[in-house]
């Protein structure tokens, strides 16, 4: 990959469901090392964009390029191995697995192969040690053996980020990582993500907490009704007339009444 080509690039991507157009001609680039926010009112299509990038959906039209490769038709299962990892808006950890087992599941694309499937993941396993180290870096070392279903919300939220990280991704996509976290937890999440970014991982987050967006992300993309309405520096986003209109609804107040 040349220094100039972006890590992720969407070109005229559209997606509809049963005649309802959800994403219309969205294009954007994310440079390697960027910290990008994807924002917009509820229903703007942010999570759909995540699902298109991670392969849950196939675009009706357009191209998605990642690390110099067209990935629109790559099966979702293989994308994490290319370096695309994500978290989910509603926590989707495996409730009956322990914390460390969830993280080891996140390593699946790294482990690969038939032989690794037959290898036990007990105390001395390299994978378990790596998973525990990763948890420790997130200050979660007291939890590895606990079954996820029994843990509080904020902790599970963090574990989901760590699970995505366990695949050693080039691009980390987080869907509302700060939702439901208190200000202290959000601050520690911010510092943690900053650390990941400094280590070279590109970050794309969907987030409603503008404090986190401003302090973490240098760039932002704003979606409204499935179209891109802003693509630029985060610090200017709140002065953009289209963005103000989307959120405050100067002319489209009725359409945005419940946004």
């Amino acid at each position: 990959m040349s220094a100039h080509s972006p890590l992720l690039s969407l070109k005229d991507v559209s997606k509809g469901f049963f005649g309802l157009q959800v994403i219309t001609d969205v294009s954007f680039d994310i440079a390697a090392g960027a910290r990008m926010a994807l924002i917009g009112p509820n229903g703007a299509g942010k999570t759909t964009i995540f699902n298109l990038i991670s392969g849950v959906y196939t675009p009706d039209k357009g191209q998605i390029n990642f690390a110099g490769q067209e990935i629109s038709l790559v099966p979702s299962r293989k994308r994490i191995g290319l370096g695309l990892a994500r978290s989910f808006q509603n926590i989707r950890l495996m409730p009956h697995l322990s914390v460390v087992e969830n993280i080891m599941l996140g390593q699946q694309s790294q482990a690969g192969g038939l032989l690794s499937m037959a290898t036990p993941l007990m105390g001395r396993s390299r994978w378990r040690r790596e998973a525990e180290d990763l948890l420790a870096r997130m200050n979660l070392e007291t939890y590895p053996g606990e079954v996820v279903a029994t843990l509080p919300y904020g902790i599970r939220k963090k574990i989901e980020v760590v699970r995505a990280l366990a695949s050693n991704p080039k691009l980390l996509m987080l869907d509302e990582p700060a939702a439901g976290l208190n200000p202290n937890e959000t601050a520690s999440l911010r510092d943690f993500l900053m650390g990941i970014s400094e280590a070279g991982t590109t970050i794309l987050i969907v987030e409603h907490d503008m404090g986190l967006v401003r302090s973490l992300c240098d760039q932002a993309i704003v979606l409204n009704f499935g179209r891109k309405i802003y693509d630029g520096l985060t610090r200017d986003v709140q002065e953009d007339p289209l963005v103000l209109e989307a959120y405050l609804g100067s002319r489209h107040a009725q359409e945005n009444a419940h946004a």
Partner: protein
Amino acid sequence: MSGYWAGILSILAINIIFAYGIFIPVASGQLNLGGAGFQAVGAYSAGWLSASFGLPVSVTIAFGIIVTGVIGVLIAFPILRTKGVYLVLATFAFAEVIAGAILSSEPLGGAMGISVPGYIDWYVSVIFAGLVTVFVFYLMATRFGLTIRAIHDDEDVSDLMGVSVRNVKVAAFGIGAALTGLSGGLYAHSFSYIEIQGFNALVSIYVLLYVLLGGTQTAWGPLVGATFFTLLPEALRSVLPATKNFLVTLFGETGIVAPPDESWRFVILGALTVLMMVFRPEGLVTRTMVERLQFWRPVSRGVTQ
């Protein structure tokens, strides 16, 4: 050892292996209600080979395992395209097809059944049950076991994590079928006679109950479930007549409610099953329970920042 206890131990060992055969696909979220069909394939493969060619037991049982495993993998591809209750019905239908085919097959004895030479003592089955238990515990501790349990919890996220969901499900189904085939082969040689009526839908239901009531989250579940539900009816067999005699001496024969006698065994078993489903829907042995019972915990690695 008395013949009675030898019989009980054989059945217990066979039921444990059978339960593990059903457990592995169930642990990946695939309910298999065709257990008796797979067991019949194993039993008839081994029994037929033994009766027709007089081959040694080790060969016939291995043959039963292979045939059942291969059939398991082959039908897994179409059958695992169905989900939930449809999968349950598909596996159930498979067992009915097997039963129908064997019933109308002359070489396999049809409704008459076949006598199986090559008798094996109870301890052979017990040794196999031990080996299978160790094997399943090992399997559940591997990455394969991890992916099985992950698929049980959330197939779509497992896929996004890079798990080849279909391959893992097919492998789980195939390994489970092979173990079920082993239980069938052991059955054929332990009881020297097999008839297809012995592999009916009730057998499939019972073995699924062993697994579901024992607990599907850990390898302890089927062991506890199969043991409990194999031994309980036997225990009730002597407890119930004693209770009846006791009540009769207290109230006389003319009580309004007939005191429970031996025939009440299955009433009690049924009531217990309902109670279990109400109070412990995740089974007798759950993951959290095993965690709590672990006295030795791996020493915390004490990582400091």
